């Protein structure tokens, strides 16, 4: 097991290098630091001196790959590629264009994100599985067909409308919770209630529909027929036979998402004013802060790779036949 994990981690290195090269190409080759400086400074203030100043201040005044002026090893290290991209591997994210330390920002903003994303994720899965099981119980009836239609309708509503509608109904009309904001010390659950509710409700359409398909696939298997022939009740078939057997495809779909929960949700956090990583990214995109975007891309890919490894490990737990080697 340990050997497997280590090997997977080593496989991850070329992928991270690829991610790094891709972002580097996007940010420094397609658009030169001069272009970036010009767009950051705004049209009015673009003079050659201003651009030079901006580049020096933010550390973009070095050559891209190879520094001819420096000697020895520093001809490789005193470059934009090394200072801006390679250092990410050491989790040294540097400073944002506005001068704040990205590592500190990320580690403080991670927790509000998690406070929203984790309950939304857990409750969401629970609700979806319950709804799907209920629908599967009535399979091949009119109720089942209507349920699928409702699921597809729910899927067809843009996420933005769930948020806007939820804020309007629950917060403005019924005045049950504050519209937005977050306070970790004073009744944080009050601020979390609506975002979690909105995420769960908006996920029911696609989630429950997906679980229904998985359960139906299992419900057509021979062992289900055998169980029914033995006289097992429908309830026990659902929970004791179908649910455990559907675990493998369920795990494939959800375990990979768990590490990414740290990243938070862009839309939820920005609408509800939660100071997490999602709104951090959104602010970075809106203010064109490429240092933050670069760091978040790197963090996101690491979390995705961890998710893939966790998925494999979870298989051994769900299915004793699976051995990792």
């Amino acid at each position, binding site marked *: 097991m340990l050997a497997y994990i280590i090997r997977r981690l080593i496989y991850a290195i070329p992928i991270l290098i690829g991610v790094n090269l891709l972002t580097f190409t996007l940010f420094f080759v397609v658009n030169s630091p001069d272009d970036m400086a010009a767009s950051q400074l705004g049209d009015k203030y673009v003079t050659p001196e201003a651009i030079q100043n901006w580049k020096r201040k933010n550390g973009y005044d070095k050559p891209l790959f190879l520094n001819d002026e420096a000697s020895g090893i520093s001809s490789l290290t005193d470059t934009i590629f090394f200072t801006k991209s390679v250092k990410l591997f050491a989790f040294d994210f540097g400073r944002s264009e506005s001068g704040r330390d990205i590592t500190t920002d990320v580690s403080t903003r991670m927790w509000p994100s998690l406070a929203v994303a984790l309950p939304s994720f857990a409750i969401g899965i629970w609700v979806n599985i319950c709804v799907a099981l209920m629908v599967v119980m009535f399979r091949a009836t009119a109720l089942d067909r209507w349920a699928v239609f409702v699921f597809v309708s729910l899927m067809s509503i*843009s996420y933005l409308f769930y948020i806007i509608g939820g804020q309007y109904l629950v917060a403005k009309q019924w005045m049950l919770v504050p519209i937005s904001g977050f306070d970790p010390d004073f009744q944080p659950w009050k601020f979390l209630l609506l975002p979690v509710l909105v995420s769960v409700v908006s996920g029911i359409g696609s989630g429950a529909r997906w679980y229904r398909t998985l359960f139906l696939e299992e419900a057509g298997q021979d062992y289900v027929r055998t169980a029914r022939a033995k006289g097992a009740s429908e309830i026990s078939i659902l929970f004791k036979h179908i649910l455990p057997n559907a675990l493998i495809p369920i795990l494939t779909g959800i375990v990979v998402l768990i590490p990414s929960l740290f990243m938070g949700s862009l839309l939820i956090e920005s609408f509800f004013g939660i100071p997490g990583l999602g709104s951090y990214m959104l602010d970075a995109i809106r203010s064109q802060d490429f240092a933050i975007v670069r760091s978040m891309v790197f963090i996101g890919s690491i979390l995705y790779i961890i998710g893939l490894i966790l998925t494999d490990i979870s298989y051994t737990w769900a299915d004793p036949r699976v051995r990792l080697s």
Partner: protein
Amino acid sequence: MGELGFKPVLLWSDALVFLLVIVLITFFYRLRNDPQSRDRWSQVFSSRLGMITFTVIMVYVGIALLDSLHFRQALPPPEGVQTNEVFYDNKVTSVLDVMLDGMGDRFERTYSAPFALKSFEKSNMSDGQGNMVRDYDWLTHAGQHLADPSGKWLDVLRLTAIALMWGLALSAVVVGLQWALLRGSVYPWYASWAVQTAVMCFMVWLVYISHYYHVLGTDQGGTDVAFQSIKGIRTGVLLGTLSTLVMLPIAVTLGVSAGYFKGWVDDVVQYLYTTLSSIPGILLIAASVLLFQVYIDLNPDFFSIGMEKADARFIALCFILGLTSWSSLCRLIRAETLKISQLGYVQAAHAFGVSHSRILGRHILPNVVHIILITFVLDFSALVLAEAVLSYIGVGIDPSMGSWGNMINGARSELSREPAVWWTLTGAFFFMFILVLAANLFSDLVRDAFDPRSNSGRSET
């Protein structure tokens, strides 16, 4: 050209969309010759739901195509100047704009509620005696023909009745023509005709009554919301199809060659899509769009009219969405190709010394077409929804180009006003929901018909 009084304008996205239509028609024409796929299509269309959803999608596509025929109108010659030169309006008009009969030109000052006669906000004006008062101003383009404002709803009813008569007359002609042609067909055409009648009545009613009222009110800038919602159709439909068109060749080429050649080709392709899918999609898209925006801002001379600039950004967005989203389809096609290339008939073809390109074209590609088809329809609705989110984040469609995302983005705080301004969001919601719902339902039917696995699952339950 000057004789015609207009000058055609071909935007890049127009050219691409007509190219796409030609490609799709040839594709479906070739599929018709294949008995197996004909069977499957007839399974899709023999259900009423299939007919209804397909008709709805076609209506949207038709409106998008009409909105893609652009031209610039000739301006009347300046007073007192005798010249043979014709000057053209800087504003680009589309055939759809003409068919909507000036719906987009009836501006108000600011917000007004659906069917309202007065403005939604108070403004300074003078009463009869020359005093300044603050009151709700009368609208410029609503209820001008009314002698008595209290008779408004009766008038709306009267206009609706007239419009419905015209709508029914038009549908009678169109449906009657189809009935004469398709009589005795095994497919449930009547479902399609019902939708066509409903759509035609609605459109005739909308265009007719918009002369007298703002059906969905006006937004902050005073533009008719119903007009904006209809203009959003082109953006949504084009984004959904063009992005998929960019994505398909990449995904199919890489996926098929990885599954067929195996070895190092497979390793490289797997590496590429794992790397790409490990990057958070929204960040990659946002970063690419921002970089393109920087490029446009620094090279403003490339585009002669504002519309071309918005169009360039739109096409860039389609390309970016396509280039960043091929990994999941590629993975599916690779797996399917791996499976197919183990099958007996492919092995036999190898044994007979058939060339790689022939095996790929004859035996592999036709057998992955169903995956491509299902993905095409499924991705379409996902992309329409994604457009709204991207425009909200600020990396979507250019704000000067109408889109549902831009409408939502502009209206996101309107519900928190007192009283709430609900009509902009409702307009965007309604038009977007119908399209996405139709596409989702249709894609379910296509998948049931074409995917052997989901088919067997259904028959057993």
